[in-house]
């Protein structure tokens, strides 16, 4: 009886472990768990082929089999593996419950997707941003998409911009752990990143003020940090803002003055909007090259005529409002009285 029990248990255990997943992982790991395993290219470059099992175990794909992604492999040992196509699972209506959405469509029309389609070998595909074996949930700190890691992930390719961004107000805030501060994707978008000269782009001259307004508008998060929230409204009121609304692409937008990656507070001497640097910023080629130093230094730029902070502008605006209302009341009263008198005269004549 005891022997029978052992036999049944053994069979059960064998059956359990003969589950194909584990079997496959085990089979692959025969070779890929060896740290020294590598592919030697003709150029002499060695490409390591070691796969750390623990990475896969922590990834979102920890329940997947190697061949679920590397579907072109059906024998061991195998030759060259093709690039994995994530779309095998991530399509809408897939039976395994893989997340899906607009991202493929968006990606194919994005600057990155278009470059890939055009045959640019350096342009990023899914894995370049999301990782290959190390696709972690964006909530885990080691994820390429953990919010604080996004700049670094993008910086893998856009290294110069990353270096500038890291020093900017936004970059430093992100490094300091302020979660409301924007990383690359907050401004540029994710799968739908477009070239900045494309009108659809979130950072195009046409749309950038809306993008900045998401945080710097009245509904924005910057209120928490004592940053003024009327910047968007005052921009729209300014001649630059009016020009933007009239479809002009040459008028200044947020980034024209505040810079884009190198955005800094006005007290930072390196800032493009630091009082010392404003003449240079306003006097840019194509903007106001003849600007005098007085034109641009030491004054309010974002003017809100409805706010008392604007000083004389506020009083002029108020004064004209009162004058206009009084004049209109007077004129209308006069016209109405005149018409009434005429009507009475006409009736009297009849």
């Amino acid at each position, binding site marked *: 009886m005891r022997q029978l029990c052992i036999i049944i248990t053994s069979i059960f255990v064998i059956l359990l472990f003969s589950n194909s997943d584990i079997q496959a992982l085990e089979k692959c790991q025969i070779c890929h768990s060896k740290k020294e395993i590598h592919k030697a290219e003709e150029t002499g470059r060695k490409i390591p082929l070691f796969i750390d099992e623990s990475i896969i175990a922590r990834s979102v794909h920890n329940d997947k089999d190697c061949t679920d992604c590397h579907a072109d492999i059906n024998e061991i040992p195998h030759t060259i593996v093709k690039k994995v196509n994530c779309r095998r699972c991530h399509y809408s209506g897939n039976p395994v419950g893989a997340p899906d959405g607009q991202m493929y469509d968006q990606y194919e029309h994005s600057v990155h997707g278009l470059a890939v389609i055009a045959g640019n070998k350096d342009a990023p595909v899914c894995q370049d941003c999301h990782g290959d074996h190390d696709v972690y949930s964006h909530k885990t700190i080691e994820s390429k998409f953990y919010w604080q890691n996004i700049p670094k992930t993008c910086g893998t390719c856009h290294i110069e911009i990353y270096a500038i961004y890291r020093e900017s107000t936004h970059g430093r805030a992100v490094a300091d752990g302020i979660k409301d501060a924007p990383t690359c994707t907050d401004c540029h978008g994710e799968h739908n990143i477009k070239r900045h000269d494309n009108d659809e782009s979130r950072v195009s001259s046409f749309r950038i003020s809306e993008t900045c307004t998401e945080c710097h508008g009245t509904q924005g998060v910057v209120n928490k940090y004592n940053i003024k929230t009327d910047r968007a409204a005052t921009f729209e009121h300014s*001649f630059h803002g009016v*020009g933007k609304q*009239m479809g002009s692409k040459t008028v200044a937008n947020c980034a024209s003055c505040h810079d884009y990656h190198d955005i800094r507070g006005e007290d930072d001497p390196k800032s493009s909007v630091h009082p010392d640097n404003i003449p240079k910023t306003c006097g840019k080629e194509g903007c106001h090259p003849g600007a*005098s130093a007085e034109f641009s230094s030491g004054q*309010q730029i974002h003017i809100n005529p409805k706010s008392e902070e604007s000083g004389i502008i506020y009083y*002029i605006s108020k004064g004209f409002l009162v004058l206009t209302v009084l004049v*209109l009341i007077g004129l209308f009263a006069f016209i109405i009285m005149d018409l009434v008198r005429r009507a009475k005269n006409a009736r009297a004549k009849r």
Partner: protein
Amino acid sequence: MSEKKKNLDKRASYIKGLSDNIVGSAVDIVKVKPTTQQIDELTKEVTERLQYESSSLLNESVTKLHPDSLSEMLPEEKVERNFERFGKNFRYQHMLMFVSIIILIITGMPLKFPEFDLSKFIVIDLLGGLSNSTFIHRIGAVGLIIVGIWHVIYTIGSKVGRRDFFLMVPNLKDAADFMGTMRYYIGKSKHGPKFDRFSFIEKFDYWAVYWGMVIMIGSGAIMWYKELFPKYFYDIGREMHSDEGLLATLSIVIWHFYNVHFNPEVFPMSWTWWHGQLTESEMKHHHPLEYEAIIKKESQEIIEQSDSKKAGDK
């Protein structure tokens, strides 16, 4: 009415006596078988006498009687006489001004209200973008500046300009006229006040435009050459330009359009801006004091002429 008739009858009998007198003396002359030269002289004398008598009659009527009774005495089928209200120079100023202002309003208002679809339609679809619309706005601005300079030169340099400018200066009569108009409107008096060449309403219009021109051209020039000034100059200029632009537009559309377009008396439009004329009845109704002065002056001139002629003949 009966008094008027009596008056007329009196006049008629007077003129009849006069003509009898002339005819009598003519018959006397004819009796002595005159030469052609003598007949010519006679004709001349009769004409002159008639002229003198009729002008003194006119003079008498104007000075002694109320001007209204003069017109009542005159035959009704008389062709209405026109009075020149605005000279050519002034009319050209007005034309350049309204063309400029229409351009300025069409290209300016959309920038004050950029959020409206109509504004976007005008600037983007109709004018082809902001750079075009601002360029056209500046053309209008140049037109307005030219009118401004032209008018100042006209005011200083021309006789009519100088006269009109001094007549434009507000005085106590305007305050009284305003009160009188109010009393007329609320039914406390039967007639409105009698206006001279420029009523207080017209004076208000004129000085409103003056103020508007100064503000709009001044602030516009600052914005045009913003780089030369501190930015708060530009900010002040822009605020004033924007606010005064709206005020001026509303004043023109409501007030000026009411007076010269939508007012039942002139609807759809008074053509004075084109031909510069007012009819005699318009003159009498709207500018009675000016009308009286003109008639008085003219009759005085006629009398002086005939007086000097008489003196010359003697």
